[in-house]
């Protein structure tokens, strides 16, 4: 019989939008409202349900990933679990100490020394003074700032500040660990530390709730995923399945375009575009380890023209990854095109691109030199991340490409 540690029943939280727009009211407003005849505020556009009738059960030792778009209610769920705010209706309850890595550095006071802040922050995170005292040396060693422990924190660099704060948070040892990567600040190195720490906790058989936008990180660490959509649970189940369906739903990229009516189709007196698409070959989605195809169909209007397509692939940041020209295509390249419909396919192998967003620029070239048509954003698509090895997540890989390289280490003596 699994031991249940978190339970939410019909959990709902409503925010008034005016409240967030105007962080605090004025007394005058409240007084005038008090003397005016009371009108019922209709539940129109002024209110938003951050969470609506959410039922959730988590057993001890489960590693649950929570995904969803911005504003789906992920952080609200965590705040309710941590009792930071009260639900509008429903109930959430838990057993055991909840620790959150999103609280890193909360309550740090710049005027206090590192040592004083360790005790204060420890108390804020729910540690007993005796517990802090016992772990003090360990915390300081972990942070790597021993020489400055009696210096006021205001003289610390941002990095030192972070390291000390993280060292404390990492030593709390909660029964339920909550990691909100969306809120976690800091550099890549820091986030990697957070995720590493999370993996350790999960291995010890403790319960983990992990909120992230990075589905690859979630997939590699969580068995179960809960997908929140506009305050409701859209799906709750096996990580791989839920993530696949989630990703399919959030595709906002231009991965396929068709022009059925030739008069509406983009082009000119030379050519007309009829279709452009980017699609994975076998898998459901394009990931770093799956091959995929760039697919174009067009009509040649002038018989006898020497045509070729030229593709530029850019990252979302505008770095040109490569230029592809069908120089090795041996059926039509360098030959005159008769009038009619043609299809070009460019195959991109697996393990070439790093994860991220990409943009395809299409050029149609005549006589190998003259550009007769150009669309700088014919397609946009995402390459999704996958874990480098099973059960590990290394964080973001740097670089535009992410090739699989042969590697050999020899012991020479």
């Amino acid at each position, binding site marked *: 019989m699994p031991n249940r540690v978190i339970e939410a029943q019909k959990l709902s939280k409503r925010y008034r939008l005016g409240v967030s727009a105007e962080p605090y009211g004025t007394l005058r407003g409240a007084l005038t409202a008090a003397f005016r005849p009371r009108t019922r505020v209709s539940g129109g556009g002024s209110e938003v349900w951050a969470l609506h009738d959410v039922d959730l059960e988590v057993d001890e030792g489960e590693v649950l990933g929570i995904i969803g778009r911005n504003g789906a209610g992920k952080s609200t769920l965590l705040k309710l679990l941590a009792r930071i705010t009260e639900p509008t209706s429903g109930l959430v309850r838990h057993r055991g100490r909840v620790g959150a890595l999103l609280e890193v550095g909360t309550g740090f006071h710049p005027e206090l020394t590192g040592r004083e802040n360790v005790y*204060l922050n420890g108390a804020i995170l729910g540690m007993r003074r005796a517990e802090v005292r016992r772990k003090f040396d360990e915390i300081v060693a972990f942070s790597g700032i021993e020489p400055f422990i009696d210096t006021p924190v205001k003289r610390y660099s941002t990095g030192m500040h972070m390291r000390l704060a993280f060292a404390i948070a990492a030593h709390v040892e909660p029964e339920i660990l909550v990691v909100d990567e969306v809120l976690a600040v800091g550099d890549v190195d820091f986030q990697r530390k957070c995720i590493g720490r999370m993996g350790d906790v999960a291995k010890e058989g403790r319960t983990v709730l992990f909120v992230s936008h990075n589905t690859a990180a979630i997939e590699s660490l969580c068995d179960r995923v809960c997908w929140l959509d506009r305050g409701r649970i859209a799906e709750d189940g096996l990580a791989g399945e839920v993530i696949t369906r989630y990703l399919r739903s959030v595709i906002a990229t231009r991965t396929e375009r068709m022009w059925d009516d030739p008069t509406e189709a983009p082009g000119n007196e030379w050519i007309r575009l009829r279709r452009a698409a980017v699609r994975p070959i076998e898998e459901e989605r394009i990931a770093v380890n799956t091959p995929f195809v760039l697919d174009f169909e067009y009509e040649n209007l002038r018989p006898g023209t020497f045509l070729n397509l030229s593709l530029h692939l850019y990252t979302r940041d505008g770095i040109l990854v490569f230029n592809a020209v069908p120089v090795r295509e041996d059926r039509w390249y360098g030959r005159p095109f008769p009038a009619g419909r043609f299809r070009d396919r460019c195959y991109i192998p697996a393990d070439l691109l790093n994860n991220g967003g990409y943009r395809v620029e299409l050029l149609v070239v005549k006589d190998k030199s003259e550009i007769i048509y150009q669309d700088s954003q014919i397609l946009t698509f995402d390459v999704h991340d996958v874990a480098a090895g099973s059960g590990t997540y290394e964080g973001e890989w740097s670089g535009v490409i992410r090739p699989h390289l042969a590697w050999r280490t020899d012991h020479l003596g």
Partner: protein
Amino acid sequence: MLAIRVSEGPPRAPSADAEWIENRPSRRWLPRVDVQELWSFRELGLFLALRDLKLRYRQTFFGVAWAVLQPLAGVAVFSIVFGQLATVPSDGIPYPVFVFAGLVIWTYVANAVELAAQSLVQHQEMVTKIYFPRVLAPVAAALPGLLDLAISLVFVAVFMAAYGVAPGTALIFLPVAIAGATAVAIGVGLWLAALNVQYRDVRHALSFVVQVWFFATPIVYSSSVLKGGWQYVFAANPMVGVIDTFRWALVSGPSPGAEDLISLAAAALLLVGGLTYFQRVERLFADVV
């Protein structure tokens, strides 16, 4: 057989009978003080109070002497204006001693109220990121001032010795007066801290309100100037009872009368009311602050 208890080791996952910690909409109207919970958070309260204490005089030239300089400056000014120029009656106590006694306890309450009023707004980051009984913030803010008060009392004693004023047996009631002052500070502090979260008007109104309150409290004058029933109205200000008791205990002022019971009732009402209001709006703090 000898049983050896091993206290170290990682915390174990909660056993099946571990208590559920719930979060549900509160429907209570009456204040509810969860003593057990407050007790389990005592160290946090202590650390918050200690932090304020440590920070108060850090990087100041006079340091903790400020605790005394503030009321002392008042003593000098009021002794000249009211003691010498206007000759306000002071129940037969030398005016500087009379006003010093009133000022030290007033300074404590005024500072504590101001700190408590700012406490939640000041701990905004904590309020929006972690759970703790919110009451801890204003209460912890109202406590460190007691140390300043203790230091000031030493100086009052020096004044008393200099002017030949000796405390009587009523001195044993001094803790009662100080407890009353703390209760008033916390009561008012709870109201203002909660109001301040929603209405930052509090910050602007505070110094003015404190000033009015100062003159409505028998600090530079004696409450015995009020006669003919007015003293009962006057005593609705709970600080009247606090000051009367404090002076009676410390510098042998007139013993508190029936009107001071009104002050006691007012203080109790303020505290219970403050706690009620605080807990009514507490759940909104993280959303509004």
